[in-house]
């Protein structure tokens, strides 16, 4: 049973069970318990499984270790501390592991230095890909009592025959940064490793999960503890200390009128705001969402406000490890005034004292916003402070609603990939190396793990058949088979000497990624893009690289071929693949906000003073609007939101919301094409699926090619100017979609795309169908990609439902896109639970301006985009004026 635990224990209750030396040390060092410690010390001493969520700096990691250290100290005093691993700590980051190692070693040393007794000492060691062979051998002879490791290294250790012996006495397992694992395949991988470990040593252990806030906590707890064989979830206590730390945050608009202010003014104002916040605080952390944005902010702050390399620094994934470590070191020493990060500083590495967090532009998720703000404030007693500074009107609405939701503790939901067959392939191979298994026995172990609890037997058998090489003739199975399988006996086990090596050299969930070279059709090298970005490109897409515009033509294995497109409007910003998609839940919150605000504004549309309202500064009227009053936003923001909605309401007479979709037809005369803008506010992953389904349908119906642009707030269908999509088309579409198998339809469509080819490589590499390393030789990503395409072709021929193909579709539909929700939206539309209205505009309505200029949303293009939006806005305003 999962139990939410809300009653903290007293200090005495918490400390009474501790070893005397630990207790003395603890009380000398700390005056009081932090919120997580008020629960964890006692609960862990009672051997409870426990999930703790709390902001970083709240001592939650240490709170998990105190009881464990105390227990080990007791053992050593009794002379019963043996040569085995008592506790495993797993985190997704090597850097974090090094921090933890230090944070455990130092207290232990301090305690031992006070002791006069000569007892065997508690050993801590890290084991990651960086660990040297010598250290590994030492660990084998004298295992650490507390092992600090990563998911990948743990997977290797449980398959190491000699080392795994040391796990037999395991009592505790800690997963840190659970929120970074529970929503992806790395976490899925870890979850299976843990179940295998428990099965291998023949007993369960106390599981402790630590994380920043995430929702729903019950699912996070299930992820941590898994299920019993009878299908019941294992017991787990949840302690949510996220909100015990006070948070103060606000959404701010740099100017009172984002549309009409010039770039110079907006930019100047943003940097002025940044500077004044930085100056007020000791150390400020700025999140920019993209790496290029990070560099730009650092550059501009240095240029305009005389910061230098000693006071400000950038930190993001493209920097070398040494540079990042250098920045982290400076932060720990408190030397920096400001650090600017894309996303890399979200994780809980120790970065010392941060007293303010600024987010430049929306982080696209409520939970993420809370996690980021949580990085500020030294201890749990301090208040976490932060601001979100917005860059356009949609961003403004989004951030305002996001922070309001954060205030109300409405969080978006995370999702764990379920029944991922590629990861499971690895584990079945790993399991077969450990011993001979009965099918039922293995199937039961697998289903104890949360991500595989609902695994269909058929999928399991398909994997057994694949891995045993059943897809080739008997005489070739020696080469193809990775497990041995006896059909009559219903058992499987180890096969071949090479398999063990393949397992060790290829395991893990993170795909090898590589930069794609961009060439012109004349074979001239332009630069690099990320593979994830190339996956998103469709022929005809225009994007900016190195200040120039190029049109995507086609791709070769590791090359992207483009033609010159100067003068054309970009359709996709270069950071598209880098920026996280808006979550469904936040999109729905925005939809609800739109509905409520529209209701409140309705009365003003009848007012005579209307023009003055939207052109002047109607402070009083704005102050009267209830829904805006309580939001954590500044006056500029209030004013801008008010005007934005008024303009939309006046011009289009419609404000779309979560159960009413606005579909807007408009023309682009310059480009000679038609736009159908779907104000479909369900987040980008849902829109990704929705738009594709619609484009396939309309393409078939009109026998034409349909272009799509997908953004967070909706999507745009682009057709030739001769094609006129009517209400009837959409009605018929909705009707037909309720009868067809959408998944099959999309499959057919996605099969020959870059997305499929690349994602199949990821899945095939995880599923050991395409190797990344063979007999110790690294296989280049290029070669892997070619091999993956060959394997796909052949596997598809013998069985279109081949497990790895099936998994690739699942990954695309459920992880990259959100097809289940898109199907649900369509179903609700056909039942008219979600209504829609079709309008025609000569100039696109204000709510669509950011959508149709989305491709220009890049630094280099930012000026053009604002100009473009200002132009559209001017046209809208002149039309509104004519109405009166």
């Amino acid at each position: 049973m999962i139990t939410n635990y809300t009653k903290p224990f007293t200090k005495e209750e918490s400390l009474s069970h501790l070893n005397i030396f630990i207790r003395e040390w603890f009380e000398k060092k700390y005056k009081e318990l932090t919120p997580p410690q008020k629960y964890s010390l006692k609960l862990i001493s009672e051997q409870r499984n426990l999930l703790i969520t709390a902001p970083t700096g709240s001592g939650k990691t240490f709170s998990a270790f105190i009881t464990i250290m105390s227990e080990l100290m007791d053992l050593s005093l009794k002379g019963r501390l043996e040569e085995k691993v008592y506790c495993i700590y797993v985190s997704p980051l090597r850097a974090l592991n090094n921090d933890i190692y230090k944070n455990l070693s130092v207290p232990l040393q301090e305690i031992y230095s006070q002791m006069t007794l000569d007892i065997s000492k508690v050993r801590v060691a890290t084991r990651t890909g960086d660990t040297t062979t010598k250290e590994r051998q030492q660990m084998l002879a004298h295992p650490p009592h507390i092992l600090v490791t990563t998911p990948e290294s743990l997977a290797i250790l449980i398959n190491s025959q000699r080392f795994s012996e040391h796990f037999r006495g395991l009592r505790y397992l800690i997963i840190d940064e659970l929120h970074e694992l529970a929503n992806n395949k790395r976490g899925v991988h870890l979850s299976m490793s843990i179940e295998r470990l428990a099965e291998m040593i023949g007993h369960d252990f106390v599981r402790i999960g630590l994380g920043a806030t995430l929702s729903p906590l019950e699912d996070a707890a299930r992820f941590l503890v898994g299920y019993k064989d009878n299908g019941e979830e294992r017991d787990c206590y949840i302690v949510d200390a996220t909100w015990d730390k006070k948070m103060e945050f606000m959404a701010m608009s740099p100017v009172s009128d984002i549309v009409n202010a010039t770039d110079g003014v907006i930019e100047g104002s943003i940097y002025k705001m940044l500077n004044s916040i930085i100056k007020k605080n000791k150390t400020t952390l700025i999140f920019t969402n993209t790496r290029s944005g990070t560099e730009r902010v650092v550059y501009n702050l240095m240029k305009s406000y005389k910061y230098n390399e000693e006071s400000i620094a950038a930190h993001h994934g493209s920097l070398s490890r040494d540079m990042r470590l250098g920045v982290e070191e400076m932060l720990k020493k408190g030397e920096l005034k400001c650090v600017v990060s894309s996303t890399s500083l979200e994780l809980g590495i120790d970065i010392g004292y941060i007293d303010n967090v600024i987010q430049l532009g929306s982080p696209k998720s409520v939970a993420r916003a809370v996690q980021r703000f949580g990085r500020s404030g030294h201890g749990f007693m301090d208040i976490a402070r932060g601001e979100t500074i917005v860059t356009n009107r949609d961003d403004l609405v989004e951030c305002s609603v996001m922070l309001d939701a954060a205030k109300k503790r409405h969080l978006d939901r995370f999702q764990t990939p379920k029944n991922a067959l590629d990861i499971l392939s690895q584990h079945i191979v790993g399991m077969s190396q450990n011993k001979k298994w009965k099918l039922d026995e293995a199937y039961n172990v697998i289903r104890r793990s949360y991500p595989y609890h609902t695994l269909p037997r058929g999928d399991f058998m398909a994997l057994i058949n694949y891995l045993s090489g059943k897809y080739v003739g008997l005489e070739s199975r020696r080469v193809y088979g990775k497990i041995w399988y006896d059909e009559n006996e219903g058992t499987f086990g180890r096969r071949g000497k090479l398999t063990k090596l393949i397992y060790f050299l290829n395991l893990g969930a993170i795909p090898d990624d590589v930069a794609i070279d961009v060439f012109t059709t004349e074979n001239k090298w332009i630069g690099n893009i990320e593979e994830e970005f190339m996956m998103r490109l469709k022929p005809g897409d225009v994007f900016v690289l190195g200040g120039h515009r190029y049109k995507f033509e086609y791709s070769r294995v590791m090359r992207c071929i483009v033609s010159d497109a100067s003068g054309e409007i970009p359709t996709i910003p270069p950071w598209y693949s880098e920026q996280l998609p808006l979550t469904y839940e936040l999109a729905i919150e925005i939809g609800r906000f739109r509905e409520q605000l529209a209701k409140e504004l309705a009365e003003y549309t009848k007012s005579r003073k209307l023009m003055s309202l939207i052109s002047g500064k109607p402070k009083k009227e704005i102050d009267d609007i209830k829904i805006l009053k309580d939001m954590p936003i500044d006056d500029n923001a209030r004013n801008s939101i008010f005007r934005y909605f008024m303009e939309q309401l006046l011009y289009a007479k419609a404000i779309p919301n979560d159960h009413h979709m606005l579909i807007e037809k408009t023309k682009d005369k310059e480009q000679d094409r038609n736009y159908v803008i779907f104000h479909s506010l369900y987040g980008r992953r849902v829109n990704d699926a929705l738009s594709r389904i619609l484009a396939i349908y309309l393409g078939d119906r009109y026998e034409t090619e349909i272009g799509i642009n997908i953004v967070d707030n909706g999507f745009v269908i682009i057709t030739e100017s001769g094609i006129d999509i009517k209400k009837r088309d959409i009605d018929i579409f909705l009707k037909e979609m309720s009868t067809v198998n959408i998944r099959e339809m999309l499959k057919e469509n996605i099969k020959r795309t870059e997305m499929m080819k690349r994602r199949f490589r990821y899945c095939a590499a995880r599923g050991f169908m395409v190797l990344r390393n063979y007999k110790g030789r690294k296989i280049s990503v290029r070669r892997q990609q070619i091999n993956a395409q060959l394997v796909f072709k052949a596997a598809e021929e013998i069985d279109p439902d081949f497990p790895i193909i099936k998994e690739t579709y699942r990954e695309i539909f459920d992880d990259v896109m959100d097809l289940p929700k898109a199907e649900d939206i369509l179903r609700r539309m056909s039942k008219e639970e979600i209504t829609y209205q079709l309008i025609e505009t000569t100039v696109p309505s204000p709510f669509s301006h950011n959508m149709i200029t989305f491709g220009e949303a890049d630094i280099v293009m930012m000026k053009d985009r604002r100009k473009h939006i200002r132009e559209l806005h001017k046209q809208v305003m002149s039309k509104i004026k004519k109405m009166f």
Partner: protein
Amino acid sequence: MKIAEGVEALEGLPVLYIKKLNAIVCSDLHLGYEGVMADRGTFLPKVNLRNIKKTIKKAIEMTKADRIIIDGDIKNEFSDVHVEEFNEFYEFTKFLREELKLKYIDLVKGNHDNFIDRYEKSSSIKLYRQEALMDGFLFFHGEELPKDKDAKFLVMGHLHPAIGIYNKLGIKEKLKCFLYGKTRDKREIIILPAMNYFAEGIDVAVGHLGENSPVFKKMLDVGPMEAICIGEGELLDFGKVSEIAAIGRR
């Protein structure tokens, strides 16, 4: 589809039929490919031979030919005959002789066909080391220029020609194709698509063919050639390569 007098491309198949010779012609089988790849750590399901057998059986049923001319690269490995290659080669020639009851099996050696000579007798095939001239038709593999200067009709393989098609939703299809046209000295030439299941082909409308091929350097321009693509069960005439290339860059 009729390509030239007495020369027909079979609907939906990468196979040519020449009436005068009562022969089907195909090229670039690369038998044993999966086995060779498996040795290097890529475990391709075996589908190539199965597919080739199916295709050739169909071609024989359609044409009642009693001869097959393989225009090079029956196998894959350069340095030796891999055990899987031998197995498949053996199975394939046996299939041609015993199941399809073909009278003549001709193989023009390609650049991948080293050491195949050992099996010429045992598999009762006729091996041509450079090129084969039959009744005015010259068959050569294509990695080198043909020696014969008189034949009126040339047939080559080696290139694996194909045409790539994209649409706005990002879908890419590659269709194998025959290329048909005239050499600079005005002889008719046809380039065969690859039989190998895994060979997607080289997109001739976007590539730089001249760089590596002596044939395209010395005797042939790809632009004016006609691309006849192999679709599902039918052939599709795509017109001139230069025109397809122009559309691609709109």
